C-alpha cells in the first residue's frame, strides 16, 4: 500500500516535471517577449537590460533552470497587462472556477448516477432508450451553444435568471446547469456500462441462486463494484469540468481562470497563460492522485495484498 502511494506520487512528480518542460518550450516558441513588454520607445540598452534581467541572453538549459526555480517559488513573472504578479492574478480567479466546477459536478452526478443505474436495471425498456437518447444528445451539445440557448430562454425570453455575473446564488444556476448537463451525459453512460457489467458478474448470479433479495444484490454488491471505476472516472471528469469551465465562463462572463486565460491569450499576456496552465495542471493532477488513493482504499484487492 505504501509502495503503491509512493509509486503514484513519483509518477505524478515526473509528469509534472515534464509538463514544466513542455510549458517552457511553448513559452520559448512564442519568441522574444521584449517588444511586448517594453514600450516601443525603449532604447536598445533598455532592451538588453531587460533580456539580462529575465535571463533571456543565457543558454536554453540555464534558462530552464531559472524558469523551474521561479515556478517552484510561484513566480511566473509580472502580467504584461495588469502589471501584477501573474500567479496572484490566477490564484484570485481559481476560486470562482472551482466553485463552478464543483456545483456542476454535483449536478452531473445527481443526474447521471440515477439515470445510469435505472437504465442498467431495465435493459431494453423505453426508459433505457430515453436515457440513451439523453446521453447521446448531452455528449454532442457544446456548452457554448447550450449556454446561449439557456440565456435566450431563461434570461431573455422569460427573464427569470441573470445571464451573467458572479456572487449570488441565482448566478450559479445557468452556468452550473450548462456545464453539469454536459458532464452528466458521460457520467450516465459510464454508470450504465459499469452497472450492467456488475449485474452480469458471476457473483451476482451466485447471489441470485442463493436467494439474496434483489434489493441487496443491487445496492450492496452490484452498485459498490460498479462504483469503483466510477469514482476514478469522476476524478477525471473533474479535470474535464475545469476545461469545460473555460468555455462556460466565457459565455456567462464568469470571473474564473478560464476567462482570464482566454483574455491573456488574446492579449498575449504570457506570464498569466503559463501561471493559469500550470496551476490548473497541478490541481487536476492532485485530484487524480487523490482519486487513485481513494480507489486503493476502496478496493481490498489493492489495499490488502
Amino acid at each position, binding site marked *: 500500500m505504501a509502495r503503491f502511494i509512493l509509486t503514484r506520487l513519483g509518477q505524478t512528480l515526473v509528469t509534472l516535471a515534464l509538463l514544466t518542460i513542455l510549458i517552457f518550450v511553448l513559452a520559448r516558441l512564442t519568441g522574444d517577449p521584449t517588444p511586448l513588454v517594453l514600450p516601443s520607445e525603449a532604447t536598445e540598452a533598455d532592451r538588453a537590460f531587460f533580456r539580462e534581467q529575465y535571463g533571456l541572453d543565457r543558454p536554453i538549459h540555464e534558462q530552464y533552470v531559472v524558469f523551474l526555480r521561479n515556478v517552484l517559488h510561484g513566480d511566473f513573472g509580472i502580467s504584461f497587462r495588469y502589471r501584477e504578479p501573474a500567479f496572484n492574478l490566477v490564484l484570485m480567479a481559481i476560486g470562482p472556477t472551482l466553485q463552478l466546477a464543483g456545483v456542476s459536478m454535483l449536478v452531473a452526478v445527481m443526474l447521471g448516477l440515477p439515470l445510469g443505474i435505472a437504465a442498467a436495471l431495465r435493459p431494453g425498456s423505453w426508459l433505457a432508450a430515453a436515457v440513451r437518447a439523453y446521453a447521446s444528445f448531452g455528449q454532442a451539445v457544446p456548452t457554448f451553444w447550450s449556454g446561449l440557448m439557456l440565456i435566450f430562454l431563461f434570461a431573455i425570453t422569460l427573464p427569470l435568471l441573470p445571464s451573467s455575473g458572479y456572487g449570488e446564488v441565482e448566478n450559479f444556476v445557468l452556468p452550473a446547469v450548462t456545464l453539469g448537463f454536459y458532464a452528466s451525459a458521460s457520467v450516465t453512460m459510464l454508470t450504465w456500462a459499469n452497472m450492467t457489467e456488475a449485474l452480469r*458478474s*458471476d*457473483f451476482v*448470479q*451466485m*447471489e*441470485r*441462486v*442463493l*436467494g*439474496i*433479495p*434483489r434489493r*441487496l444484490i443491487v445496492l*450492496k*454488491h452490484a452498485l*459498490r*463494484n460498479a462504483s*469503483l471505476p466510477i469514482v476514478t472516472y469522476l476524478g477525471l471528469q473533474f479535470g474535464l469540468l475545469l476545461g469545460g469551465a473555460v468555455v462556460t465562463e466565457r459565455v456567462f462572463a464568469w470571473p474564473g481562470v478560464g476567462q482570464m486565460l482566454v483574455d491573456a491569450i488574446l492579449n498575449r499576456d504570457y506570464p498569466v497563460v503559463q501561471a493559469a496552465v500550470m496551476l490548473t495542471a497541478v490541481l487536476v493532477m492532485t485530484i487524480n492522485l487523490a482519486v487513485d488513493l481513494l480507489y486503493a482504499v*476502496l*478496493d*481490498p*484487492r489493492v489495499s*490488502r*495484498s
Partner: protein
Amino acid sequence: MTLPNEPLLVVRGLNIEFGPPERPVRAVADADLTLAPGEILGIAGESGSGKTTLCSAIMRTLPRSARVSGRVEFAGKELLSLSEREMARLRGRDLSMVLQNPMTSLDPLYTIGNQLEEVLRERRRGGAEVRPGGAVEVLRRVHLTAPELRVRQYPHQLSGGMRQRVLVGMATAAAPRLLIADEPTTALDASIQDEILILFRELRDTAGSAVVIVTHDLSAIRRLSDRVIIMYAGRIVEEGPTAEVFRAPRHPYTRALLGSLPRIEDEEVVLQPIPGQVPDLARLPPGCAFAARCPVALDACRAERPQESTVGERHRVFCWQAAAGGAA
C-alpha cells in the same frame, strides 16, 4: 407437503429454445426427469449438450430471451409458473446451486464472513438474530482450515479450492432439499476435486438433501451419484442407476464416451475416439442426433427420432438399436 415416497423434483416435457423463432436453437428438448429426496443424480454430457441450460431452467435463472415450455415440479410446486418473488424465496432455502467458477463467484469487495452472514441472515425468517459464530460454523462444516481467520479475509486471499468450499458452505447453509452443482470441480486441481465432491455426499448424509451434479467428468459422476443421465445435443439419451450404466451402457453414445476415456488402470491404454463432431443445434437432423457418428446406426435412426425404451429397472434409453436389442 410431499410424502416420503413422493419425488422431490419432477420435470416433464421441458423444452428450451433460444434465437429467432423461425430458426430456433433448441438447447433442451423433451426433457423428463424425476428425483427422489436424498438422491444424488449425475447429469453428464459434452459442451452444448444442454445440461447447464436444464439446471438454469430449474433454478429459473435463464436469460429473458429463452423460451421455456413444459413443467418443473419441485415438492409439488410448479416452478415455471411462480412469480420472481416467490421463486427468490425458494432459492437458497429449499433449492440452491453451486456455480462453475469459484474464482469469480464471490464479491471481491466484502470479507468471506460478511458474505456468509448475509446468506445466514436471509435464512432466518421472522427477524431472528444471526448467532455470532454462524459463519465460522459453516466454514468448519465444509472443512476449511483456520475458519476464524478465513471469515476476516477477502476472496482474493483464498485459493480456488478454498473459495469453492466457501461457496458450497453458502449454498448449503440452510440445508436445502435440493442442491444443483454445475461443473463444481472443473476449475479445480485434481487433488482438490474429490474434497469438494465429498462435501456433496456429506450434505446428503447429514441433511438428507438431494443433489444434482452436472459435469463432463464421468469419473466424478461414477463415484458420487446414485443415478446418471447422459445428454447429447439437448436430449436425454440414456438414464439409469450409475453402476448399471457404467457397467453395461446401452446407448452407443454412452458406450463411445466411456471408450474414449483413457484409463490408468489398464496395462496398455487404448483409446477409441468418436468420429466426427457434435452437430449444430440449429440444424439437427430429423432422426437421432447421434446417428451420423454412430457405428451401429440403422436407416431408421436417420429417419425418425428414437422413442424411449426401458431396458432394465429404472434404466431407459433412446435408441432404435437398443430398443431392438441389436446393440446389446
